[in-house]
C-alpha cells in the first residue's frame, strides 16, 4: 500500500467486503447480546442449539470461519465434556426414568437433559459472542459508541484494555526468553515451572506499572483531558435502516423467546 492509498483509506467509510463484517457495530452488538442473553436466561438446550446453529451459520459466511470453528471446537471439548462427566457422576443412581447404565449404575434421563441444557447454553452464548468479537474491530465499536454519547474515557479504557492484553503478552514472552538466557529454567516438570513463575511474572507487572508514568505524560502532552469532542481517524458508516430493523427484531424475538421458553419448555 502506498502512502497515498493509506491516507485515502481514511477518507471513506471502513469496509471489509463482507455483509456481516460490515454490519454496523452497535446494531451487531445489540443483536448478539440479545440472542446471547436469551440463551442464558431460558437455559434450555432447544434454544441454545438454535442460537449455536445460527452463530455457526453466520460464522460460515464470514472470512473467520476456520478460526471460529477451531476455537468453538476446543471450548466444547475442554469445558463441556468435563462438565458432562461431573454432572453424570453426581446424578448417577438417582431415581427416575433410566437413559442407560454406566459402571453398573443407572443414569437418569433428567441428568442427560440437564447436561444438554448446560452444554448448549454455553455453546450458544459463546458462539454468538465469538462471532461478534471475531468480526468486529473494537476501535470501530468504540468510535460508534462515542458517537452515540458514551464518554471518551470509557471508550479509551475499553480500547486500551485490548491493546494492553496484547502488549503484556508480548512482554511476557520477551521476559521469559530473557530469563531463560540468564539461566532460569522455564520449561520442564511442574516444580521447575512453579519456580519460574515469580521471575517471569514480577518483571512484567512491575515494568508495566512503572511505565505508566511516561504514558501519563504522553497523554497530557496530547491534551487527552482537555474539554471538547474527541476526533477520530476512522469513519464508520451510519447504521442503515435494515441494520436497525435486524437489531430491533432480535431484541423483540429475545424478549418473546425468554417468556415463551420459560413458560413452555
Amino acid at each position, binding site marked *: 500500500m502506498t502512502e497515498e492509498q493509506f491516507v485515502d483509506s481514511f477518507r471513506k467509510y471502513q469496509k471489509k467486503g463482507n455483509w456481516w463484517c460490515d454490519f454496523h457495530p452497535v446494531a451487531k452488538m445489540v443483536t448478539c447480546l440479545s440472542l*446471547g442473553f436469551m440463551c*442464558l436466561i431460558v*437455559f434450555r438446550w432447544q434454544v441454545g442449539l438454535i442460537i449455536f446453529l445460527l452463530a455457526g451459520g453466520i460464522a460460515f459466511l464470514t472470512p473467520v470461519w476456520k478460526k471460529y470453528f477451531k476455537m468453538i471446537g476446543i*471450548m466444547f471439548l475442554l*469445558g463441556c465434556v*468435563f*462438565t*458432562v*462427566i*461431573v*454432572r453424570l*457422576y*453426581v446424578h448417577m443412581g438417582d431415581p427416575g426414568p433410566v437413559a442407560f447404565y454406566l459402571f453398573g449404575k443407572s443414569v437418569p434421563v433428567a441428568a442427560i437433559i*440437564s447436561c444438554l*441444557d*448446560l452444554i448448549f*447454553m*454455553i455453546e450458544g*452464548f*459463546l458462539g454468538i*459472542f*465469538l462471532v461478534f*468479537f471475531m468480526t468486529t474491530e473494537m476501535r470501530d465499536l468504540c468510535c460508534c459508541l462515542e458517537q452515540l454519547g458514551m464518554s471518551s*474515557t470509557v471508550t*479509551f*479504557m*475499553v480500547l*486500551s*484494555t*485490548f*491493546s*494492553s*492484553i496484547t*502488549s*503484556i*503478552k508480548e512482554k*511476557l514472552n520477551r521476559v521469559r526468553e530473557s530469563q531463560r538466557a540468564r539461566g532460569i529454567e522455564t520449561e520442564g516438570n*511442574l516444580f521447575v*515451572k*512453579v519456580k519460574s*513463575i515469580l521471575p*517471569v*511474572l*514480577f518483571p*512484567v*507487572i*512491575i515494568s*508495566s*506499572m*512503572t511505565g*505508566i*508514568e511516561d*504514558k*501519563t505524560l504522553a*497523554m*497530557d502532552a496530547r491534551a*487527552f*483531558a482537555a474539554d471538547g469532542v474527541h476526533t477520530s481517524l476512522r469513519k464508520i458508516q451510519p447504521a442503515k435502516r435494515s441494520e436497525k430493523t435486524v437489531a430491533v427484531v432480535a431484541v423483540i424475538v429475545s424478549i418473546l423467546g425468554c417468556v415463551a421458553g420459560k413458560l413452555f419448555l
Partner: protein
Amino acid sequence: MVQKKKKKKRLDNMTLLLIPLAVAINMVAYNVLYSTTMVILGDSIGTILVGAVCGPFPGAIVGILSNLVNVIKNPVMIVMMPLNALFGIAAGTLARRRIFTSFWKTVICTPIFGFIGGWLSGSIIFLAMGGDFWGNLASVVIGIPLFRAGVPKYFAMAVGQLLFDCIDKIVCLILVFLIIRSLPDRFLIKLPYGKYVTTKQYREEDIEF
C-alpha cells in the same frame, strides 16, 4: 488552587492507565498461574492491586472489565461480575486501613476475599446452574465427595469453593503485597491510595507532580 486542580487531573490519568493494565495483568496471571498449578487462578491480582493503590471505585471497574473480557472465553463469568467488582471494593477499603503495609495483616485478610470468591461465587453458580454442581476442580475434589457423604448439596459445593478459593486468594494477596513492596515509593505516592500502602512518611507539599 490551580496547583491542586492540576494534581487531581494527573492522578486521574494514572488511574485511567492502570485500569486497562490491571485487566491485562489479570489475564496474563491467569494464563501463567492456572496453566501451571491448576488450583491458583490468579485472575484477581490486578483487581486487588488497583483496588489497593487506586481505591475501591477503580478496583471495581477493573473487576467488571476483567469479567467482560473473560466472557469471550467463559460465558459463565458474566454472572460473576459483581463479585469481581467486590474484590476491588474490598481491597480499596482494606488499603485505607493500611492493611497492605504489613505482610501478616495482608495474609489475615484472605478469608474476606475467599468468602467473596468462594462462598458467594459458588452460591451464584449454584443458582445459575439450576441448583447443581459446576464442573470445576473444587466440585470434583471436595464438593461431590462431601455431597456423597451426606452433606447437603449447597453446603458441600460452598465449602469446596471456599477452600479452593482461599488457596487462590492467599497466593494473590501475597503477590499483590510483594508487587506493592517492589514498586518505588515515588511512584506509589502519585496514586490516589498510594499513601495508604507505603510505609514511608512524607509531606504532601514536598511531592512534585
